């Protein structure tokens, strides 16, 4: 690179006359042809009594690196400008390309972070430093600019897939917090980049090698497989038993030592170095944080999946509606056209109304849905959810068995009046205290026009079946009846409210229903997918999950503080070693690598433990099951859903936090001057 290799060969000969095998090249740099020392031209080999020993010495000529590196600062500012620009650009591009807002937002975040990191790396390489001051200053500028710009501009901003507009709608506080978060993320990304730039390029040339740094880091951590296994067992057994066991062992040791002393026998007591203890505590902390995070996220995902499957089993994946009242009479033709759209698995007409149900003296509000018994099976799981009775009796109300109490078993069926059938949910049946065959009155508030204004319309139905879908809201609210009965009762003629759809692939429900709309040529039709139909529920679930992740992320954050403490202790403990390594020519990036490797090692081992524990716990919950009171939670076992993506994200988060935690102690180590560590034992 600098001709050092070639030069060293020549130098080798004169320096080591009898060197049989020279270990690599030994020269430092090409020789300087004509050095001209400015002082004393006539050099005396021995001491020259210099007159008037300089009382105020002139500063040495070493070009001390400036405390504030301007080019690095410039690059940091560029990072702060470039990241939001990249973010906005990618967001706009994806918006145009038609990606979903979630995906677009995430991708644009990644683009912004990468830009900040790349420019930060450049700053680190150019400034030959982890540009703490420079990036902090630039970050402060960015915060100021974003706050001023964001607060002033946000009201008029068309932000595309960026959530700035949404933040602005939620008030100034949310907007300010959101912008601060973005600025913090960009600054952090720049820090990470700059530290990487310094680690890789801080020595003046690219050096990604980790050979001896890992060697030294491993020796510092002193982690034997046995020690790690012990730690793992302590964490697995839930700390308390493990710690009790450790205490027991230590007590037995103390007893043995006493006995040995009493018998005047030699005794060797293994001692755990303080730094090793700290290391183990940090690993345990990270492991517990990752464990909690993975398990809680998996359980929440389980709840979400459970809810989703219940909702989507009981309700449709999408609907086709029509603007205007009571004139969706061409639904048979529309249904045929909808069914021809690829990705659609089924479609069924429905009529929808809110009614009151009464039985004896019980009263309940309900949602009345008229369904076509012939095709409803292609969309809803109604038939599968029926617990008592039979869905087919909607078409054949005369087959509904009469309740025993009224003497239905012995009295001839002909004597009982044939009433149209009604299918209600289990909770609704319970609150109305009815069983299959009982009579239920359906009261519609929007009834006929009587002499004194509109009068509620009432009609008697017979319970044909009782269903249970597992969602309390549905089991206590829904009542189904035959389409024709519903149309007659609600006096809608041949018109329906809309068509319910089932898609083949749940996750592509949105594009499929959009395709349906395009196929129907838009107005007067409109479509909704299940996400839109249940937006509040899923948004709340998602928010809950994010908040949970943030709160549990704090455990990992606290664990990372112990990493900081452990590394600071290591650095203090190894001051002399750092100085010796420096005196042997280890560069500052190299020293930093050692401690970054130590911290990342702690983080990685802790994360691995945590993931393993999380995986094991989830498997346990899944296979063995933790029973819940179904009366309260409406679910019999704690649900859990393992998601590889979630585990990966947790691992990345934990490793990223660990890496950040190493930066302060590692730069502290790298800044130690060789003489500082060599002096004073």
């Amino acid at each position, binding site marked *: 690179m600098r001709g*050092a290799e070639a030069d060293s060969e020549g*130098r080798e000969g*004169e*320096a*080591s*006359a*009898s060197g049989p*095998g*020279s*270990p*690599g*090249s*030994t*020269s*430092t*740099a090409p*020789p*300087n042809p004509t*050095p001209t*020392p400015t*002082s*004393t031209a006539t*050099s*005396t*080999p*021995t*001491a*020259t*009594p*210099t007159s008037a*020993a*300089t009382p105020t*010495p002139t*500063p*040495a*000529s*070493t*070009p001390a690196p400036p405390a504030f590196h301007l080019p690095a600062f410039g690059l940091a500012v560029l990072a702060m400008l470039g990241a939001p620009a990249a973010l906005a650009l990618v967001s706009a591009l994806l918006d145009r390309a038609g990606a979903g807002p979630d995906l677009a937002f995430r991708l644009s975040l990644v683009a912004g972070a990468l830009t900040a990191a790349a420019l930060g790396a450049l700053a680190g390489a150019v400034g030959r430093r982890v540009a703490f001051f420079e990036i902090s200053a630039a970050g402060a500028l960015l915060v100021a600019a974003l706050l001023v710009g964001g607060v002033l501009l946000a009201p008029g901003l068309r932000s595309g897939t960026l959530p700035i507009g949404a933040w602005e709608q939620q008030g100034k506080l949310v907007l300010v917090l959101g912008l601060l978060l973005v600025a913090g993320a960009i600054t952090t990304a720049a820090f990470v980049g700059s530290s990487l730039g310094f680690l890789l390029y801080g*020595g*003046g040339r690219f*050096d990604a090698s980790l*050979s001896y740094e890992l*060697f*030294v880091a491993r*020796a*510092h951590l002193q982690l034997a497989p046995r020690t790690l296994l012990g730690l793992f067992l302590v964490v697995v057994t839930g700390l308390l038993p493990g710690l009790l066991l450790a205490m027991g062992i230590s007590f037995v040791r103390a007893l043995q030592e006493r006995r040995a002393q009493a018998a005047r026998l030699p005794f060797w007591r293994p001692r755990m170095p303080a730094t090793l203890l700290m290391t183990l505590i940090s690993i345990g902390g990270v492991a517990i944080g990752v464990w909690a995070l993975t398990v809680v996220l998996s359980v929440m995902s389980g709840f979400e999946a459970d809810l989703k499957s219940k909702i989507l089993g009981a309700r449709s994946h999408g609907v086709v509606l029509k603007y205007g009242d009571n004139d969706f009479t061409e639904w048979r033709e529309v249904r045929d056209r909808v069914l021809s759209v690829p990705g659609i698995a089924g479609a069924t007409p429905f009529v929808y109304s809110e009614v009151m149900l009464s039985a004896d003296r019980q009263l309940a509000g309900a949602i009345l849905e008229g369904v076509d018994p012939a095709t409803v099976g292609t969309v809803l799981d109604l038939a599968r959810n029926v617990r008592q009775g039979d869905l087919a009796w909607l078409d054949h109300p005369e087959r509904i068995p009469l309740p025993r109490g009224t003497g239905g078993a012995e009295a001839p069926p002909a004597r009982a009046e044939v009433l149209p059938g009604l299918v209600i949910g289990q909770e609704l049946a319970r609150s109305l205290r009815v069983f299959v065959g009982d009579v239920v009155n359906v009261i519609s508030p929007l009834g006929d026009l009587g002499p004194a204004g509109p009068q509620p319309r009432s009609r008697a139905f017979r319970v044909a079946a009782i269903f249970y879908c597992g969602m309390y809201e549905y089991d206590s609210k829904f009542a189904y009846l035959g389409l024709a009965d519903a149309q007659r009762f609600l006096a809608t003629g041949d018109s329906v409210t809309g068509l319910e759809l089932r898609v083949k692939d749940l996750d592509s429900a949105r594009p499929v229903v959009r395709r349906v709309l395009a196929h129907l040529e838009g107005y007067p039709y409109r479509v909704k997918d299940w996400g839109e139909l249940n937006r509040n529920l899923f948004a709340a679930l998602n928010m809950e999950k994010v908040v949970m992740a943030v709160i549990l992320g704090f455990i990992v954050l606290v664990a990372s503080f112990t990493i900081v403490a452990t590394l600071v202790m290591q650095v203090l403990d190894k001051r*002399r*070693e750092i100085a*010796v*390594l*420096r*005196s*042997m*020519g*280890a560069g500052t990036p*190299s020293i930093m690598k050692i401690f970054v490797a130590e911290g990342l090692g702690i983080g990685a081992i802790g994360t691995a433990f945590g993931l393993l524990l999380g995986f094991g716990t989830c498997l346990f919950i899944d296979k063995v099951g933790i029973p819940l009171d179904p009366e309260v939670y409406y679910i019999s076992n704690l649900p859990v859903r393992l998601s590889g993506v979630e585990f990966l994200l947790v691992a990345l988060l934990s490793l990223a936090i660990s890496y950040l935690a190493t930066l302060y102690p590692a730069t502290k180590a790298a800044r130690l*001057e*060789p*003489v500082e560590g*060599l002096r004073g034992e």
Partner: protein
Amino acid sequence: MEPLLRIRGLCKTYLMAPEAGARQPRRVEVLRGIDLDIGAGELLALTGPSGSGKSTFLNLVGALDAPSSGEVWFEGRDLFALDEAALAEFRNAAVGFIFQSHHLLPEFTALENAMMPALIRRVARPEARRAAREMLALVGLADRAEHRPGELSGGEQQRVALARALALRPRLLLADEPTGNLDPATADGIHGLLAAINGQLGVTAIVVTHNERLAQALPRRLRLQGGRLGG
């Protein structure tokens, strides 16, 4: 001819926390202007009373510390005009250090300690190991390669330090009292080793010692006193 080492007007003043009541930091002038030329292949003894600044001087020549003023030219290059990376290279391969209290790395075996400079230089591990073994053999410790510093005697530790200092065949060897707390016979052995290495490998060496007898045995002697050099 350009000497290996050319030192001009080297001064070192330490600043210390001010005494009670005073505001100015205390100044300790240790070196008050040292001029010295050392040719390639020389073997020097540096003596002087305790506290006269011998370790300070070696630290400056080895670029472990920056002077208050003055220059050190090594092979025609002004050391203190070099940037951090070039200084690291200089410390790595051009100079070998033996400290007053040897400073071996306690977690590593003798062999690994001797390998360390080569590993820092990113030499492949097998080659570094081979060179380190060679050096350990040279100082007569081939059979102690797998011992940790804690399992070695003082003299053996000092010899490991010598092997480590010589690992990359430096042109300059700076030995700060390598025989400080050794018995006379062992001290003689170490000095003999130094002389042999100087002769065999042509390494220029500055050896600090309190032992007048050993100093007299070396070809050139310097005495540091009152911050200046005397013959």
